């Protein structure tokens, strides 16, 4: 009897978990597999569950003839991909360094207004970005930053700094103060202690911040949609969202582009699963 009950509970657990995994993975499988179907196969009913005749035609960048050479058209997702890469890889190190410096000063120094400023940084994470966006748009129109990647990078830096600062502060708090204090006694400067002791010890926190900020920039849509209207500076999410319209939605383009947009998150999950779990749960469990 006891054995039976345990067996039933175990079976239910496995059934639940397997159902959940199928439900979580199927949508991802479906968009990836659709991207390898020809345009005809994509729209048949009943659907083709497994593409047995995979094709790369949806990945073919639209090319155009400019100044005597065939080049990748601005309409295809390649320029969007490049723009997204530029924005994310420029913004991420700036966020990580700025956040680490601020986090370090909150964690290691007691100074006038320090506590209050820290609370302010935590609060800033709760501001809905949409409440800040209109003045930034007006400012950008004044200083010619609309439609530029620089403008986008600046906004991404600003809106990710509160997370980076808070995370790094909590992370540094976990490193015993005695370590850097003894380094200072031994003649290290403040900067020396930061770069020689704290940053190497804080590397795991740094990795978490880097991954999350990179993905935040890579995935961001709202700011891009507001500041960028020129096809040449559009990021990948913007390009893909732009392919949806009420009269015609280009699914071959969207499925292929979405698959490409999923590469960085997939890579991070495979290479740094531990850090991702830490980044996702840290805030909630620490409170």
């Amino acid at each position, binding site marked *: 009897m006891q054995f039976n009950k345990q067996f039933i509970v175990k079976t239910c657990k496995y059934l639940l*978990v397997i159902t*959940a*995994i199928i439900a*979580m*993975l199927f*949508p*991802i499988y*479906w*968009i990836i597999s659709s991207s390898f179907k020809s345009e005809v196969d994509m*729209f*048949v*009913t009943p*659907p083709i569950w497994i593409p047995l005749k995979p094709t790369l035609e949806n990945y073919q960048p639209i090319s155009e003839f400019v100044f005597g050479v065939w080049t990748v058209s601005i309409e295809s997702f390649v320029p969007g991909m490049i723009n997204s890469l530029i924005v994310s890889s420029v913004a991420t190190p700036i966020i990580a360094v*700025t956040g680490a*410096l*601020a986090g*370090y*000063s*909150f964690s290691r*120094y*007691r*100074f006038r207004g320090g506590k209050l*400023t820290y609370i302010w940084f935590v609060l800033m994470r709760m501001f*809905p970005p*949409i409440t800040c*966006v*209109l*003045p*930034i748009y007006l*400012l950008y129109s004044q200083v010619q930053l609309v439609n530029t990647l620089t403008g986008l990078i*600046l*906004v991404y*830096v*600003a*809106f990710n*700094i509160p997370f980076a*600062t808070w995370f790094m502060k909590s992370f540094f708090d976990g490193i015993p103060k005695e370590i850097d204090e003894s380094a200072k006694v031994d003649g290290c400067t403040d900067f020396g202690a930061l770069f020689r002791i704290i940053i190497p010890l804080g590397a795991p926190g740094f990795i978490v911040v880097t991954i999350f900020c990179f993905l935040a920039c890579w*995935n961001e*849509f*709202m700011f891009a949609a507001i500041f960028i209207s020129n096809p040449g500076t559009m990021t990948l*999410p913007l390009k*893909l969202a732009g392919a*949806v319209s*009420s009269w015609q*939605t280009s*699914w071959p383009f969207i*499925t292929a582009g*979405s698959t490409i*947009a*999923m590469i960085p*998150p997939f890579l991070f*999950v495979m290479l740094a*699963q531990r850090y*991702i*779990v830490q980044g*996702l*749960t840290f805030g*909630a*469990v620490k*409170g």
Partner: protein
Amino acid sequence: MRRHPTPYFFLLPALIVTTVLIVLPMIYTFWLSLNVNNPLTSSYGFVGLDNFVEVFQDPYFYITLGNTLYYTAINIPIELIIGVGLALAINNLKGERFYRTVLILPVLLSPIIVGLIWKWMFNANYGVFNEILKLVGVQGPNWLTNPSVVRIGIITASIWYTLPFTVLVTLASLKTISKTLYEAAKLDGANTVRRFFHITLPSLKNITFIVILFRSMDLIKIFDLVWVMTKGGPGYASESLGTLTYRTAFQYWQLGRAASISYIIFFLSLIISLILIRHILKSGAD
């Protein structure tokens, strides 16, 4: 207290950037909400609270507010039940690490990709979602074009998107429950069911509130998913406060009015977060 220029120096870059691009804009938006600012008609000027009065007299605003609260109120309980259930099932099950790895994926994707995936699955003519329903003999509605189910369609995508977060956080907090509690209860003769209701569930109370806090902050300002899946349509059936702000600002160019709607979003999330934080602090105290 040490008097030292160093901490200020370290803080300076972060402080400057966030002040210029977050704090000052936040303040300026409030000023904007008290003004008419329409570049299309070139009308500018101070109008006091007129924008707010107009917004509160607009019947569409109430539809939008209703939708936003609907998203929040329907999404969170379902996500919590599935998420906590799943976390309890996964906890200490063989292959836990593997399940966790697989389950993380959706939450790291762009909301735009998530929206597009589900728009593709929900497609009226060749969407795979209804094909799957057909396999079990159910004729599904047109999820994104039928005004009575469109919000459910969006909530489905939203739950799929953030469920990994809820599961991971719940799992992490399950790991913090001390084993001695269970052993003590076992010695006292409490069976599995009683141990579950008297130890496991109460220990999850705090984390539940934190999940509710995080998720309601997200859902009150929901924009990307709605925008990419339906653009707020059909009609106003799925419009959220977020998409209404965007539309008012960048389609009608009524910047003053958009500012006032965005401040309503801010106040809503402020009120909800204050209530929840009070709860969390209280339950943390006992």
